[in-house]
């Protein structure tokens, strides 16, 4: 499975809806301090439900909604493409897997009392986080976020004690 594109709409510093195609292989991201590079990574964590709001440098979910605009909703979508088993009921003896695209989305909306309402979608239909994570595991996507090295993680890794470091391995086992 691979990532095809990431779309951010009113999420953190992305005031305008922006669809970012991501090609196979090695992609770099560059730009000035405070321009929004790490926010892009936060969007990936957000849509896959693999970080707390604190892990995205927000005190609560509503802080993820762009404060420049007047919109009260933030939306992130991740388009994936992968090889899947043929659907149940397909012809017995079909040998190949099916190439399929799927889109995972997450929306957070600010509600009257200042709280947040949020939900996940799979191909446009609401989905529960547990079901989304089951699908991710099926596709080989870690639900722990271990494949995402955040800004400062390397430095933290070098300064953590031996026991904390061993605990990183505990999580893997």
């Amino acid at each position: 499975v691979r990532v095809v594109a990431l779309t951010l709409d009113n999420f953190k510093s992305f005031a305008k809806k922006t669809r970012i195609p991501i090609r196979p292989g090695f992609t770099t991201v560059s730009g000035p301090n405070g321009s929004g590079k790490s926010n892009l990574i936060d969007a990936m964590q957000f849509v896959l439900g693999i970080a707390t709001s604190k892990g995205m440098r927000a005190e609560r979910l509503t802080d993820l909604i762009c404060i420049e605009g007047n919109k009260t909703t933030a939306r992130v979508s991740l388009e994936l493409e992968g090889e899947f088993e043929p659907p149940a009921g397909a012809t017995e003896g079909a040998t190949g897997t099916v190439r399929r695209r799927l889109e995972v989305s997450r929306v957070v909306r600010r509600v009257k009392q200042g709280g947040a309402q949020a939900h996940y979608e799979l191909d446009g239909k609401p989905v529960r986080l547990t079901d989304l994570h089951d699908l991710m595991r099926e596709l080989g996507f870690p639900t722990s976020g271990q494949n995402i090295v955040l800004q400062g993680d390397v430095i933290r890794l070098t300064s953590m004690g031996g026991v904390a470091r061993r605990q990183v391995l505990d999580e893997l086992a």
Partner: protein
Amino acid sequence: KRTAFLDAFERVSEAFQSAFAELARGEGRLRLEAPEDPFAGGLIIEARPRGKKLARLEAMSGGEKSLTALAFIFALQEVNPAPFFVFDEVDQSLDGVNTEVLAEAIRARARTRQYVVISHHRVMLDRSSQTLGVSMRKGWGTVVTGVAMDGAEGGPDGGAGGG
């Protein structure tokens, strides 16, 4: 539980030795403080960077520590592979040569998996096949422009303008 841990430790340990040789061009190894009862102790990282004596991670220079931590991260990724990896400014302490070695190690792994790497270093950007340029525009917010390194145009569309 202990068996599962020791099994994971063996595999990460082996992957770390080869990743460290690739990045630091020296010998590195992982060691359990309490091998008989792993959960009673920590994980020790020892390395002999090229031409130097064996030292624990704590005694190394800033750049050597980062490089060693990256070898550990690569080892974890090899044992627990994902289709897609993200690195946010992992090369902050590295000098030019080490940044280049890291860029090459990522490029080699990116043949079979997607890597998205945020970096301020020219050396890293030049070795990728696509660079997304991110900037902040007054009254507009974050703008992303795509620059394909290998000639094809692959820019983002939406707010910032298409293709």
